């Protein structure tokens, strides 16, 4: 099987300091990869390099495109990369305000990606937006409300709907549950898990919350100081951590 995403030797430096160094991994279709580590360990740098928001200094990010098979995303032209960003890829920001247009109605937010790829039938766009609001448990009656009138959890669900509406194959998530209270977190995780399984999505989830990866991720990558120090199946890494830092990380979680 061809990996959906094949990352080789990805390196990003900020001057003399390291963002992330020599990261390599494969992601297969339908798989969810968790990236954990403490603040400043390079998780977000890595995610932004993968998603094309930052230009890495070295390495390859080979994505299995629908039309041309595996291609290095970093050598693609900007229009191709943008097209990928609107169709096959999705990026869920930690803060929904970064991923939503706050002054545009919920329906417009969901419809934007559709219109960006050429949907010009109002009725069809609206129908699809209504469908997706339903799937993320937002009442259809709120389709014309602006996200600023939504609660934090609803905003995050709306952001997910907006991203998944074009049926992407790869979703990048940066702390998708950050800043939400625990019961809302639990519902959101449940929802994401359902969507990922039903749509057969591949996802890369960056978080410092081990509970999130325990629920969502098939495999886990632990990062420290820009390097990957441990990888493995989620349960294996969390239940039998090998690297000293991973042991520290796992034992730092409060058991209630």
């Amino acid at each position, binding site marked *: 099987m061809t990996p959906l995403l094949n990352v080789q030797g990805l390196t990003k430096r900020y001057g003399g300091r390291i963002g992330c160094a020599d990261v390599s991994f494969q992601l297969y279709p339908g798989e969810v990869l968790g990236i954990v580590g403490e603040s400043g360990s390079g998780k977000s740098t890595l995610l932004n390099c993968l998603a094309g928001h930052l230009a890495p200094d070295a390495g390859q990010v080979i994505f299995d495109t629908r039309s041309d098979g595996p291609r290095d995303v970093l050598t693609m032209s*900007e*229009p191709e990369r*943008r097209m990928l960003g*609107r169709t096959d890829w999705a990026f869920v920001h930690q803060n929904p305000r970064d991923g939503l*247009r706050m002054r*545009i*109605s919920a*329906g*417009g937010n969901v*419809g*934007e*990606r559709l*219109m*960006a*790829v050429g949907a*010009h*039938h*109002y*009725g069809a*766009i*609206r129908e699809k937006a209504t469908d997706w609001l339903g799937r993320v448990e937002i009442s259809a009656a709120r*389709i*014309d409300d602006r996200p600023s009138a939504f609660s934090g959890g609803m905003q995050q669900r709306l952001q997910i709907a907006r991203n998944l509406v074009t049926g992407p194959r790869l979703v990048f998530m940066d702390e998708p549950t950050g800043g939400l209270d625990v019961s809302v977190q639990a519902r959101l995780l449940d929802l994401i898990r359902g969507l990922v399984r039903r749509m057969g999505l591949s996802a890369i989830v960056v978080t410092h919350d081990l509970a999130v990866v325990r629920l969502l991720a098939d495999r886990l990558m632990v990062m420290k100081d820009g390097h990957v120090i441990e990888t493995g199946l989620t349960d294996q890494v969390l239940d039998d951590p090998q690297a000293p830092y991973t042991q520290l990380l796992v034992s730092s979680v409060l058991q209630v």
Partner: protein
Amino acid sequence: MNAYNFAYLDEQTKRMIRRAILKGVAVPGYQVPFASREMPMPYGWGTGGVQVTAACLTPEDTLKVIDQGADDTTNAVSIRKFFEKTAGVAVTEKTGEATIIQTRHRIPEQTLTEDQILVYQVPIPEPLRFLEPSEVETRKMHALEDYGLMHVKLYEDIARHGEIATAYAYPVKVEGRYVMDPSPIPKFDNPKLESAALQLFGAGREQRIYAVPPYTKVVSLDFDDYPFDPSKPAHPCALCGAEDSYLDEVITDDAGSRMFVCSDTDYCAGRREGRDA
């Protein structure tokens, strides 16, 4: 009179503006940056249009200036006087006699010809401005033809008002490539953007010039199920009886009486005089 160079601007400045105009004509709808000069009038009064007009004027030209369709309002009168004084060119109020027409927010009703240039005053040249505040980002969007956001605006209109409520500065796509703000003309005028005349757009404060060359394809953006509709009030003109012209609503007293009259004063006067329109 001799205190000024012909048409106020110095020759080097006019050359600079002409270069921008030529580039604009070569790339229809593309906003060409230019080094806009301080003009002896406030921004928002047509400094961009005036500079473009100055760069196009020759001593043989006949100039007409329109402000919201009218030849006799402050903006039109002062700009016309300005060029009478600094260029000494002939001026007219008749659309058919003019070779250069500077306009604020209207296109004349009378069909323009290949011998005419229409110069628009543009307050905000960027059609995506109110959707995306960053100039870096909007330029990138133009470069990559990333125009989904423009339809989001129209979507919002329909969602909120049941129809595309944008009534002026209605976005158009020029020659299948650039999305352009046609300046705040009523959308009634949008079909007239496909014209035999050269159309130049000058934005002084924002320092941009763009152009629609003669016979260029200009399409108003819309949805398949909500097609573009160049609407106007359902009345004839109260003065000349025209059914096909854009109308201004004029309040005539404080008891709610109103009348609808042609916004294009020359067209209305011409019809009443029995001139060929």
